């Protein structure tokens, strides 16, 4: 316990920015815990880390952590992070976004950052809703789900974040769940250390804005649902289509080792400098 308190004091702006805004049981807080443990386990210094976050409950994370932080504007965390990474590739750039941030208003940047395979560690805290603004449907709200803007059910199909990133060209794509915190720690560390665009989707319950309206009586019911429906990816792949329905596969979906954009740049620069030397 004392050890944990020490970690909290070291990594969080605990005496300035607390209490935090997260509701009891919000998955975002669990992701924040995992993030701190992961940075700590990797032995990174706080000063080499830059966190860029969007706007939303997820984005509030940039207020709480004691790294270099940029609390960006809604949807543009990835573009700001792109500028940071390319101008100083030595920085460890962690980007935190909600599903609205990453896939609705910032969807275009998401596919392009993945396509460029730029070396960013990207966390998308997916709660299937715009949490901060009061529970409007997002581009990951499941078909039929009730939200304040779809009171009789969502009519649009939703994005599968993992498939989208994989198809767009991300080097590393994984999914964790807020119920499985230890598993999340492992995947988070891998996300932080993998070269190129590395995405971790965290399935993050928001009972306040999503669960209540979608037949989850309490926040505990949401974690129970996560516990029961989460399935390791290897197992999931063996299931029949019928059995796979409604299950949430967790694990590593893409693990490529292609050079990142900043590495390609460094190579190009080295080549050009060498050629100039020869001329």
């Amino acid at each position, binding site marked *: 316990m004392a050890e944990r308190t020490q970690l909290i004091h070291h990594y969080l702006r605990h005496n300035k920015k607390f209490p935090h805004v997260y509701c009891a049981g919000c998955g975002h807080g669990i992701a924040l815990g995992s993030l701190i443990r992961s940075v700590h386990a990797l032995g990174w210094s706080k000063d080499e880390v830059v966190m860029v976050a969007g706007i939303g409950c997820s984005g509030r994370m940039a207020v709480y952590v004691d790294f270099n932080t940029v609390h960006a504007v809604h*949807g543009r965390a990835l573009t700001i992070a792109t500028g940071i990474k390319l101008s100083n590739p030595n920085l460890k750039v962690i980007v935190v976004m909600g599903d609205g941030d990453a896939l*609705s208003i910032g969807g275009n940047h998401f596919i392009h950052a993945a396509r460029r395979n730029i070396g960013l560690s990207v966390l998308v805290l997916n709660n299937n809703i715009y949490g901060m*603004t*009061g529970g*409007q449907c997002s581009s990951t709200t499941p078909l039929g789900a009730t939200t*304040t803007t*779809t*009171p*009789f059910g969502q009519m*649009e199909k939703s994005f599968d974040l993992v498939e989208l990133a994989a198809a767009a060209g991300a080097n590393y794509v994984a999914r964790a769940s807020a119920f499985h915190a230890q598993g999340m720690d492992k995947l988070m560390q891998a996300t932080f250390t993998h070269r190129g665009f590395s995405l971790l989707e965290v399935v993050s319950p928001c009972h306040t804005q999503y669960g209540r309206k979608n037949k989850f009586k309490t926040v505990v019911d949401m974690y129970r649902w996560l516990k029961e429906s989460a399935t390791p990816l290897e197992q999931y792949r063996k299931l029949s289509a019928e059995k796979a329905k409604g299950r949430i596969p967790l694990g590593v979906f893409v693990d490529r080792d292609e050079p990142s954009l900043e590495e390609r740049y460094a190579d190009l620069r080295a080549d050009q400098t060498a050629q100039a030397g020869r001329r």
Partner: protein
Amino acid sequence: MGKRVGIEVSLAVAEAVKLCDVDVVSAYPITPQTHIVEELSHYVANGDLDAAFIPVESEHSAMSAAVGSSATGARTYTATSAQGLALMHEIMFIAPSMRLPIVMTIANRSLSGPISIWNDHSDIMAERDTGWIQIFCENGQESFDLTICAFRIAEDKRVLLPVGVNMDGFILTHMIEPIEFMDKAEVKAFLPDYKPQLTLNPKKPVSMGPVGVPEVYMEAKKQYEQALWDSKDVVKEVLAAWGKHTGRKYAMVECNGKKKAKTVFVTMGSLGETAMTAVDNLIAAKQDVGQVRLRLWRPFPKEEMKKALKDAAKVVVIDRALSPGGVCGPVATEIKSLFYGDKNAPKIYNIVAGLGGRDVSVKDFEEMYALAKGGKIKDDYVIWGVKSNA
């Protein structure tokens, strides 16, 4: 006369939009606009409003979808705030240039940064020159009333321009106020069906938004600026018609307090009511003070404003937005240039107040009055109440 109901102003605005029987609502949520569009999505979903509600993926898309829908001749509504309005910026110019009578509520909120969800007018001031008709509401009833008027102004065939209805975020949007409602028949009697002039119609194809080569670009601009200026008469007409229809009378520029007062405040938006109380107090204390409330920001009612200020010796213009590096705040800039070269021009003071949700109280106005009366405001503008050791 309709029922008087205590209701959150956002919900009253949604009700007004419903009563106007819009065909399309496209919106992206942002505080403090959310309650308006959420309520509209309910109306659409439960069949109270026969319209399409498009929960788009950003404000850029919200305004783009509004342009598309209005181009087909549909009565179109959207609403936003701050960052959302800024994201619409590119398309804000497109709507008037295509002469599309979209109506939008702007729940005024300050632009980042620092990040702020609270009220000021920085969002709309950044859109000042987009060619929209821009109206400011002072209270909940006005927000309801002017929303309905906005459709009639926008769709008038002499106008055909988009209208932005500004209401102060939280101060109005989230307040519960007694609002006098109307029924559908009453609104229908006031607001005729929209008869679009040009639409995207396969039977009569038109081209919208084409290139303006240098030989015609300026003529096109002049044309819709002229339409914007001409809309002033229509605004006047519509407000007069509303007065007749409901008994609630509004003008583009309204005076309050002592007639021919020596010192006069100019306000826009909800601060007008605070100033009104201060003016009442000051008059009770035998001060020679008045107030001018500006309701129509674009097109700027030049003659009306000049007339309203003609007897003043000192004018205190309150701006709720900063124009960094400028001569003074946006409203004061207009009023100063209005009096340029006028030998009888009053002394014009400018106070920038209430940025990012900073409260401006009756007491503040009383202090401003004392400073102005004593001739103690020296600079081009004063940023009010900045703490020196914050």
